[in-house]
């Protein structure tokens, strides 16, 4: 298969760049507390940023891959990717909260705001002494769902052009996973370990990651359209 550079190729590149940007912005929404959250020492999910973004986004990629094997219409593919990703993220946050409630025995509280912006529940009286919050309160849960939505759509939007160019689902999936990881790692430097979601002051730094991801996305898009056709006999 020879490389033909036409309008379609430009659209594919654009999709890879936009998908990457969605992943990059989506990561900022995911409430990750890192290792401190695993000791109920910080609000959010007790793991790393990339870990969680990749876990949910790639679950969405599996759903999108299945949908794309039966249709070429991009909208159901993007939607099913988003839904698969949101299901994984919500199941994780929900079962994580089971442990905070029933094993550690603490209420959920954010240390970054005085009142939950969605439920308006007061937060500081429920923050355990010597910690910076614990559990996943409603605002973080909703923020995580939005992050998974963006990550799922982004992952599916990266996979779609990869499959269109090469026509090989396995190769396209590996490319999509690689691009996804790059775009999930870039915002992690912005986040510096922990973030609670869109209400966290760190969230305001997203334009920095957006610019870096844009540059990375363009480079990755060029490499993808150049390398992908080589793998097809």
């Amino acid at each position, binding site marked *: 298969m020879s490389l033909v550079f036409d309008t379609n190729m430009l659209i594919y590149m654009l999709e890879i760049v936009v998908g990457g940007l969605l992943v990059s912005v989506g990561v900022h929404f995911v409430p990750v507390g890192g*290792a401190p959250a*695993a*000791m*109920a*020492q910080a609000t959010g*999910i*007790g*793991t*790393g940023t990339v*870990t*969680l973004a*990749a*876990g*949910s986004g790639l*679950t969405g990629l*599996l*759903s999108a*891959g*299945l*949908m794309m094997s*039966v*249709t070429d219409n991009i909208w*159901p593919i993007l*939607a*099913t990717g988003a*839904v698969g990703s*949101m*299901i994984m993220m919500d*199941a*994780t*946050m*929900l*079962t*994580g*909260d*089971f*442990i905070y*409630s*029933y*094993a*550690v025995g*603490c*209420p*959920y509280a954010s240390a970054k705001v005085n*009142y939950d912006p969605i439920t308006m*529940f*007061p937060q*500081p*009286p*429920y923050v*355990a*002494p*010597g910690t910076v919050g614990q*559990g996943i*309160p*409603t605002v973080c849960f*909703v923020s995580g769902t939005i992050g998974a939505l963006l990550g799922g759509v982004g992952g599916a939007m990266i996979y779609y052009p990869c499959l269109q160019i090469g026509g090989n*689902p396995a190769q396209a*999936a590996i490319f999509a*996973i690689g691009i996804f990881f790059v775009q999930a790692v870039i915002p992690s430097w912005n986040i510096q370990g922990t973030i609670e979601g869109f209400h966290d002051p760190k969230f305001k730094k997203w334009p920095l990651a957006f610019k870096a991801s844009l540059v990375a996305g363009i480079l990755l898009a060029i490499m993808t359209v150049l390398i992908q056709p080589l793998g097809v006999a």
Partner: protein
Amino acid sequence: MDAFGMGICAAAGALAFVAGASEDIDSDIGSQSNPNSQVQLAAQVGNPHRIYNKAIAGEPPSNALWCAVACLMAYVLIEGYHMPLLFAAVAGASLAALFDGVMSISAYLGRSASQARFNQWIYLDIIRYTTPSIMAHVWITSFCITLIAIIQVYVLTPHHPFPIPVIGLIWGITVGAIGSSVGDIHYGGEREFQWRLFGQGLNTMLSGQIVRKAEAGLRNSIDNAWFCAKFGGPCTGLGFGLTVFLDNWRTTVFDPVTQATYAIAMGCFFVLAMNLYNLYMEISARKKYGPYPGYKGDIAA
């Protein structure tokens, strides 16, 4: 939708439950993920211990490796040698367990040896009886995930277009992410620090002061697995089982070709239901536990 498809979908969910639970217990026995920061710190603040210390990598990449190895071997045996699916999965999982055994031992030796200056010993008996338990749990995890991948590719309709190793890689990352997010809290938030006041997270001042005495004798990692298998493991299994089951269920019940909208709408319904359930739990926990005593701020509870 047919009864066979639904049965297989339920079986995939059940396998995912087992995979999630065993993944978390594996990480607890080996003290692999986030709470291992405290195990690592313990010796440095004067608390040498008998906990296994195998932070090979973050849980998602390491589980992705085990599952991809297992699925790759199964794929070669199925496609190249026409081996029965079940036996291929068994062979694949055995190879993954061997990989894990090698890396666990080298991780334990390396990490403990690097802490010799803090008086941390290498216990050969710990290696001898803990490593097989870790390998056994990795075997269960990678076996279940290989079977899920086989079900998705060869049995469920529509067949998944990805080959088994790619699906194994993705489910490995996902199960590691869930194990790291859910089960770790039970190990790190509760088991490692049982002597502090119940009902709160770890006070920063207590970092590294992990519990070193067990119900009988000195605590080791098998004691931790005994405790975490009661709640942390099943919760992780529930998280991963829900992910696999709900995601497959909606495309099994609704045909993705003709009823894609219903499949997507059903997924959105699940998401909404989980958001509302979390809100209910938050309200319930706030009512039952109440604010922390000694809070001196201006904001009323």
